[in-house]
């Protein structure tokens, strides 16, 4: 539904940020784009929603080459929402309610519909109680969620998020990821960038490894994390849960029928279950 074909991009006076990127986003999927700081992940998202125009190659939206005139961009942004890393780059109004209303109003919706969208977006992010609060008195984590609500209220088909977990504590990340799961459950396609391998591993359907200006590997987590040399070259490391799960599995310490754990919780539960198995065996 959203596709980059051979896309290159350079910032004026700087080295090439993207160098022949191929990437196709599939409808309804949860795609994580992994890469080190400065690898160009943000640039990639800006190209995916038309904020930047490729120097070479093509962006395709619903199969057709993207156009960059005003009307086309407006449609594009209706379909593809982008949440930037720093919420202060996206918030402008004095209160949360006012701020979230901006996108839906720009879509030309009526007041009743806009109100409904706001209520729903705040509800999805579990921040209904913030509606009335001034944006400049929110914590960083709250601002992050408000910035996301501002896009969610526009009901895009595809949601792009730049480092959604950056700067949040574990609880903040958990809240945010839970909201993304609710959106995904309703059919929204979600693409996020991160350098947190465990976050990506626990959440994504599909993972794209990004480095040296292009997508170096894309596929299931298991396939992608197999290539140790590639990860090393791009200064990435495997998720800890992946590593521990593999090692435990290879030693036969996990229940045979269980799939490998993908999240911290799954790993710990499996370990505890193993504990009980062993205890049961001893007792039996």
């Amino acid at each position: 539904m959203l596709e980059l074909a051979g896309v290159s991009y350079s910032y004026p006076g700087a080295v090439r940020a993207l160098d022949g990127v191929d990437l196709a986003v599939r409808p309804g999927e949860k795609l994580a784009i992994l890469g080190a700081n400065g690898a160009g992940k943000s640039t990639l998202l800006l190209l995916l929603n038309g904020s930047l125009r490729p120097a070479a190659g093509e962006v395709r939206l619903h199969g057709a080459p993207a156009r960059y005139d005003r009307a086309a961009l407006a449609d594009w942004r209706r379909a593809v929402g982008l949440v930037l890393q720093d919420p202060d780059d996206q918030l402008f109004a004095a209160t949360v309610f006012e701020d979230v209303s901006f996108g839906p109003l720009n879509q030309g919706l009526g007041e009743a519909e806009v109100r409904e969208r706001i209520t729903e977006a705040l509800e999805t992010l579990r921040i209904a109680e913030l509606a009335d609060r001034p944006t400049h008195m929110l914590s960083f984590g709250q601002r992050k969620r408000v910035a996301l609500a501002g896009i969610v209220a526009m009901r895009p088909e595809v949601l792009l998020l730049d480092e959604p977990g950056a700067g949040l504590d574990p609880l903040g990340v958990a809240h945010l990821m839970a909201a993304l799961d609710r959106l995904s459950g309703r059919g929204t396609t979600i693409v996020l960038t991160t350098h947190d391998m465990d976050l990506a591993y626990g959440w994504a359907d599909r993972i794209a490894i990004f480095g040296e200006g292009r997508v170096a590997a894309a596929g299931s987590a298991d396939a992608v994390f197999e290539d140790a040399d590639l990860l090393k070259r791009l200064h990435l490391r495997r998720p800890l849960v992946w590593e521990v799960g593999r090692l435990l599995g290879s030693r036969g310490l996990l229940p045979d029928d269980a799939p490998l754990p993908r999240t911290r919780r799954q790993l710990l539960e499996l370990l505890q279950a193993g504990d009980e198995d062993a205890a049961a065996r001893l007792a039996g």
Partner: protein
Amino acid sequence: MRLIDRHAQTSRYRHLPAAEKLIAATGAMAVALTAESFLVEAAVLAAAVALLTLGARVGPRDLWRAARVPVGFVLAGSLAQATSLSLHGGLPSLAWPVGSLEPAAFVALRSLACIAALLGLALTTPLADLLHLLRRGGLGRELGDIAFLMLRIIWVTLDCLTEGLRSQANRLGFVGYRRSLRSLGLLLAALLPRTLGRARRLETGLAARGYDGALCFLRQEQPVSALRLGMILGGLAALATLARLGA
């Protein structure tokens, strides 16, 4: 810097329509400015302070901290007004002319009354609410949008400034006059590109939300209540009557 705003955002009166509060405050100022009796000025001052401390529950300490600078100016200005400068044998000398004290004291009291009225507005009404009124009242779309953006970017930039000053203080940047000036210069020179960069990124961020040059948003605001408006106008009328009787 954030003291007044914090009160405004958390005030019991925050949700009253800004128009009502603006009418009350500017009305009180108009009465104070046109009245000529000490009694009326004192009544405006007392009413504003009472509304702030008893009604809006602003603590006396915070009230004083908010009023400190303007009150200092009023005292210095009135002192200058009360004294007379004359040159005797080439040396300037200060004198207290007979009858100069009373008009100076009156201006001081009037100014205090108006400052209290201003604080009555500022400590209960978020600035953004007043900007809405101005935008509707003829400030115009462009200027209104610019003022809103200013307000938003001010908060973000102030955070940068505070952290920057802190960081320079940590590195002993304010030991001595020359170093202080140099440090502030470095800070301001670094802050300009940062602030302008913020504007560029905000443009991208808002474009992702369909920004096409106009900032529009829905407001949640209580409608103006005829009862409260009547009470405000009644109070102002009483003060105005008092002013006429006193004159």
